[in-house]
């Protein structure tokens, strides 16, 4: 009788522990248990400005995917693999841009939907990209008076 009790209690403890571990990994660590959850598209940038794998991909502020990996292409541009939820369709001429949350926040990717009829499939490449804004460069341009644009002096 006593031995059965112990087995049951240990079982309950192990189940509780594994549930806690599973909850943390799936919910917070975004571990993919059920294989791929979406499809992958690629985008090429001149400058990623500190974008990290795992960063969110948003359309109109709503999270639709995440950055899977970033690697360097043969002609020295950064190729970013984006994993997009399966139920979100992207047009071929959608614009991908790297943005910053707040002034010094995390980098994330914002997609502006396009108007094309053709939809992207797994492994396709997005052509319209907009690199990260280099704040320091912008400031130095401003300081040395090279910012061109409206108004003038």
């Amino acid at each position, binding site marked *: 009788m006593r031995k059965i009790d*112990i087995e049951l209690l*240990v079982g309950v403890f192990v189940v509780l522990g594994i549930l806690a571990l599973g*909850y*943390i990994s799936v919910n917070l660590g975004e571990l993919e248990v059920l294989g791929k959850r979406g499809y992958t598209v690629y985008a090429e940038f001149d400058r990623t400005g500190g974008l990290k794998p795992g*960063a969110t991909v948003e359309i109109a502020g709503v999270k639709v995917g995440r950055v899977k990996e970033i690697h360097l292409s043969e002609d020295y541009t950064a190729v970013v693999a984006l994993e997009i939820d399966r139920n979100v369709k992207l047009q071929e001429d959608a614009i991908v841009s790297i943005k910053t949350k707040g002034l010094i926040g995390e980098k994330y990717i914002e997609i502006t939907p396009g108007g094309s009829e053709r939809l992207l499939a797994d492994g396709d490449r997005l052509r319209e990209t907009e690199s990260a804004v280099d704040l320091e460069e912008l400031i130095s341009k401003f300081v040395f008076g090279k910012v061109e644009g409206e108004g003038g002096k």
Partner: protein
Amino acid sequence: MVNILRMTGRYTLSEIRNLGRMFLFLLTSLGHIFIPPFKFRLMLRQIWFFGNKSMLVILLTGSFTGMVLSLQIYFTLRKFGSEALLGPAVALSLIRELGPVLSALMVTGRAGSALTAEIGIMRITEQIDALISMALSPKNYLIVPNLLAALISFPLLCSIFDLIGIYGGYVVAVKLLGMSSGTYFSQMQDFVEMEDIWMGIVKSLSFGLIVSWVSCYKGYTTGYGAKGVSRATTEAVVLSSILILIWDYFIGSVWT
């Protein structure tokens, strides 16, 4: 003068010999994991001893650690107007550092000391010698079940600690400090990576090994009489705690 030199030399040699004996003890015990007989039932009993019996302590310390973290970090972050980072700060410090370390320290105090005393008393009442004279390996019966049980129950206790801590922090942040629950949780998902969780698991696995190893070793090689056992128990707790903190820093610094 010569006497002092001789004493220092003897002390150093005996300490180094102790260190060597400890490592040999660990290696032979690890080797015995693969040598039958496998004492599955004893391991189960030790998981119950390490895990189930520590649940209350883990739940209490976990929830209060999360609550106090939430409270303190909130007041610091408010100075920079970035209260939104409270959730990630609580979750990351729990998952990466405090969960593994504090749960290991609590289990050391609760179970490690009892384990040393138990094995120590078996040693001084010659029960271990009785096992040997019956040609039964005391390692298989006493040490291996403890090592395995600690390796299984430490990561589980650590995850329970993390989870309950995050919810403790949630209660303070949302109910007490009036944050919105969306901010607390959504930011957390952006900041916590699978890598952080792996780091916590690796840490608590190694702490489990350290605690069970030191406790078993100190009990197994206890001195004579009640004094010897009490000394071994104290040493086991102190040495485990120190090793846990040193090893924690070590992993933290070599992990990319």
